[in-house]
C-alpha cells in the first residue's frame, strides 16, 4: 500500500501499528484472564482491557531512551514499551522465563533495556519515582522525558502532589498521564473526588493540563506528542488526563457490581478503541478486512506462543529465593 495521503489522520503505517499494538494488548490480556481462571496465574491480576489506546498512543509519542513507569495495571505498558510477550506472560505464571525470573509477578516487572521502570504495587508510589527518573534526566542535562502513569484513584494520594510541586519547581521533564477509568477499584470518581476534572489538578502548581479522549488512540498520540515536546524543550511537567474505561473488574476477583452492565456495554459498543480504529482504517482505505485479519492472526499466534512459553518455562530454582536481595 502506498503512503496514503487519503488517510485523514496520520499515515497508514502508524495507524496499522496502533491497531496491531492495541490488539496485542487486548488478546494478551484476554489470555491472561483465561490463564488466571485456570489457576496458572495467581495473586492479583489487573487487566488493561478497554484502556489500550492510552498506552499505545503515548508510547508512540516518545523516543528511545525516554522512560516509562506505571502502577500495577501494567501488562499493556510493558507490551507497548516493546517488552517480549513471552517474558511478560511467563512472569504472570511465576516462571523463570519471566522478566523478573518469577519473583516480581503481575504487579512488579521491569526492563532496564526498554527503560520500563515498573510495575509498582502501591497506589501512587510510582509518581515520586517517575519524578525522580525525570530528575535524573535533568541532572544529566539530557533531553529525555519520563512518562509517569497513574489512575484516578492514585490522583487522591498526597505524594502525587508532593511530586507535582517538585516537578514544577525544578522544571522536570515528566508527563503525568492520568488514566481516568472512572473507578478507583469500586469507587466511582464522583463519590471520591471533589474536582473530577483531573487535568485541572496541576493548576495550583502551574502545571498545564489537558483532557484527552483516551478511547481514541489518535487523539492520545496527538496530545502525547505535544506534552512530550513541552517537556523535552525544558518547559517542565505536563498533565494529560485520559478519559478511559476498563471493561473488566479492578482485578480478577472483582465482580464489578458498582456499575451497570449497560454502562459497560455502552462503552464497548460505542467507544471501543480497537473497533473504532478498525472502522476508521477501513473507511479511510488504510487497511482492508483481509489485511486486518492477517494482523489478527499474527497477534493470536504471538499470544498463543506466549501462553505456551509461560506454561513450559520452569519455575525458578529454589536458590533464587536468596538471590538479588543485595547488589
Amino acid at each position: 500500500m502506498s503512503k496514503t495521503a487519503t488517510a485523514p489522520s496520520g499515515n497508514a503505517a502508524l495507524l496499522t501499528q496502533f491497531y496491531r499494538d492495541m490488539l496485542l494488548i487486548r488478546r494478551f490480556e484476554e489470555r491472561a484472564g483465561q490463564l488466571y481462571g485456570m489457576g496458572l496465574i495467581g495473586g492479583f491480576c489487573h487487566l488493561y482491557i478497554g484502556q489500550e489506546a492510552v498506552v499505545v498512543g503515548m508510547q508512540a509519542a516518545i523516543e528511545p531512551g525516554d522512560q516509562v513507569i506505571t502502577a500495577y495495571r501494567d501488562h499493556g505498558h510493558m507490551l507497548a514499551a516493546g517488552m517480549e510477550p513471552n517474558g511478560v506472560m511467563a512472569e504472570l505464571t511465576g516462571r523463570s522465563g519471566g522478566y523478573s525470573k518469577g519473583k516480581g509477578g503481575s504487579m512488579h516487572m521491569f526492563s532496564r533495556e526498554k527503560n520500563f521502570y515498573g510495575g509498582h504495587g502501591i497506589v501512587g508510589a510510582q509518581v515520586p519515582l517517575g519524578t525522580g527518573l525525570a530528575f535524573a534526566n535533568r541532572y544529566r542535562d539530557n533531553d529525555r522525558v519520563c512518562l509517569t502513569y497513574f489512575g484516578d484513584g492514585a490522583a487522591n494520594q498526597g505524594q502525587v502532589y508532593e511530586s507535582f510541586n517538585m516537578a514544577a519547581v525544578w522544571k522536570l521533564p515528566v508527563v503525568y498521564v492520568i488514566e481516568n477509568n472512572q473507578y478507583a477499584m469500586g469507587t466511582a470518581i464522583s463519590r471520591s473526588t471533589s474536582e473530577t476534572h483531573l487535568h485541572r489538578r496541576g493548576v495550583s502548581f502551574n502545571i498545564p493540563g489537558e483532557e484527552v479522549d483516551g478511547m481514541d488512540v489518535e487523539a492520545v498520540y496527538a496530545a502525547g506528542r505535544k506534552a512530550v515536546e513541552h517537556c523535552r524543550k525544558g518547559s517542565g511537567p505536563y498533565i494529560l488526563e485520559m478519559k478511559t474505561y476498563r471493561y473488566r473488574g479492578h482485578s480478577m476477583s472483582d465482580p464489578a457490581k458498582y456499575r451497570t452492565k449497560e454502562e459497560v456495554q455502552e462503552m464497548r459498543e460505542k467507544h471501543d478503541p480497537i473497533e473504532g480504529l478498525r472502522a476508521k482504517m477501513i473507511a479511510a482505505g488504510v487497511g482492508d478486512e483481509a489485511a486486518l485479519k492477517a494482523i489478527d492472526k499474527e497477534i493470536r499466534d504471538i499470544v498463543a506462543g506466549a501462553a505456551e512459553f509461560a506454561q513450559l518455562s520452569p519455575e525458578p530454582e529454589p536458590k533464587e529465593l536468596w538471590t538479588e536481595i543485595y547488589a
Partner: protein
Amino acid sequence: MSVQILMPALSPTMEEGTLAKWLVKEGQAIKAGDVIAEIETDKATMEVEAVDEGTLAKILIPEGSEGVKVNTPIAELTADGEEAGAPPPAPEAKSERSDQASKKDDAAREPVSSPVHGGGGSLSEAKADGGGASPSPSKSRTATPLNREEAAVPWGEIPNGTKTEIQTVREALRDAMAEEMRRDAAVFLMGEEVAQYQGAYKISQGLLDEFGPKRVIDTPITEQGFAGLGVGASFAGLRPIVEFMTWNFAMQAIDQIVNSAAKTLYMAGGQMGSPIVLRGPNGAAARVAAQHSQNYAAWYAHVPGLKVVAPYFAADAKGLLKAAIRDNNPVIFLENEIVYGRSFPVPVMDDLVLPIGKARVVKPGNDITLVSLSHSMGLILDAADELAKDGIDAELIDLRSVRPLDTATVIASVKKTNRLVVVEEGWPICSISSEIAAQVQGDAFDYLDAPVMRVTGKDVPMPYAANLEKLALPSLDEVMSAAKAALYR
C-alpha cells in the same frame, strides 16, 4: 534591682557555646527585644535578645569566650537609676573549657550530672593513664584500662601508625560526603535545608559553596515525595544522598524506603536496584518528646534489601558513610544529634572506607562483653571504666551496622568472656538486643555462664519531663546492674 542575663540554651541539645560578640556596651540603655549579643553553638550563630529593660551594668563574660555553659550569668542589667551591684564571682567558663579540651565526648546527656555519669567531665584521660582504675582487692587480675583515644579509631582496618586529627562527628560526616561528591559526579545531596541553610544540624556546611545548587538541593517539606524522587533517580543510576532532618520525619517516607528502595532489586530479578543513602539523626535528642525521639535501628534492620548503619565514633562515621555512598544498595544511615558535636580522633587518610556489616571490638577484655551502638556506646565506655574499678575487664563491641548484623564478632567475644550485656536506646520488643540474644543462645549456648542481659529504652513513648525522659533512656546504673547480674556480683 539588678537582673542577671544568663547564657541561653539555643537548641534542645546545647550545653555550652561561644559568646562570639557583644552588640551593646556597658552603660548602654537596653529595651526588651534589643539584640545584645551573638552566640555560636556548634550548629549556628544566634542572636540573643534582651528580655528586660534597663542599663547594661556589667559584662561578665567577655566576647570571644568559648565553652560558656548554659545558664552562666553573662551580664548584669540594672533598672534605670540604679547602681551596678557588687562585682560577681569570676566566670568559670574559661577554666572549665581548658580542663575539657577536645573531650566533648564526655559531655553527658544530662546537664545536671548524675553521680556516676561523669560528673561534668573528663573520665577519659585519667582512666587512660590508669589513674582511676584501682582494681578491687578481691580480684587477682587487673582490668585492661580503656584508652578512649585508641577506642575511637578502627586500628584493625587502617595501616598502623596512621596519623589522626581530632574532628567532630559532624565534620567527619561532611568530609565523607564532600570526598565522595568530588570522586563521583553522580553523587548529590538533597533534603530540607541542606543547601542555603547549610543543614539543619550543619552537617552539609560548605557543600553548597563547593558543589553548587545542582548537586546540593534544598527540597520542599515533602518527605514521601523527595524520598521517592531520590529512589527514582537511583533507579536511573544516580547516587542520591537524601537527608532527613530527622528520622522521625522519614515515617512519612517509609513506604518508599521499604517498598520501592529495598525491594526493587529482588522484584526486578536483579535488573535494577536503588543505590541510595538515606541519612539523618536518629533516636532521642533531648527534651523533644515522643514524636521527635524515636529510634529506628530495629525498624529498618528488619527489612531485607536495606543495609543499616549506625556509627558512634567520628572515624567510623566517615569511613562508613563513604562506604554507604559507594554501595549499590539502599543504605539507611542512622546518625545521632547528641553525638554530632562530639570530637574524636580520625585517621588522616586519602580514602578512609570501612566495611558495612562489621562490628568493631573497641576494647578487648576477658570478663564480660558489652555490646552497643550509636549514642549508647557512651554508656558502655563509661561502664568499662566503672567495671575496671572492680578489676573487671570488659570487652566492648561497637556494632556500627545493624544490617548486616555482625553476630559473628559478638559470638566470638562471648566464647571468650562467657557473659554478654547488650545496650541499645530503642524499644525492647523485637529489638537489636532481642535479635542478638536469640542468635547467641543459638550459636554459643554452651559458652554462656549467665543469661544474656539487655538494657534498652523503656517500652513507652518518650516523655517530655526531664526526670521521666531520663528514666525512659538506658542509664549507666542500669548497664552496671546488668553487668553485675551477668557476673553474679
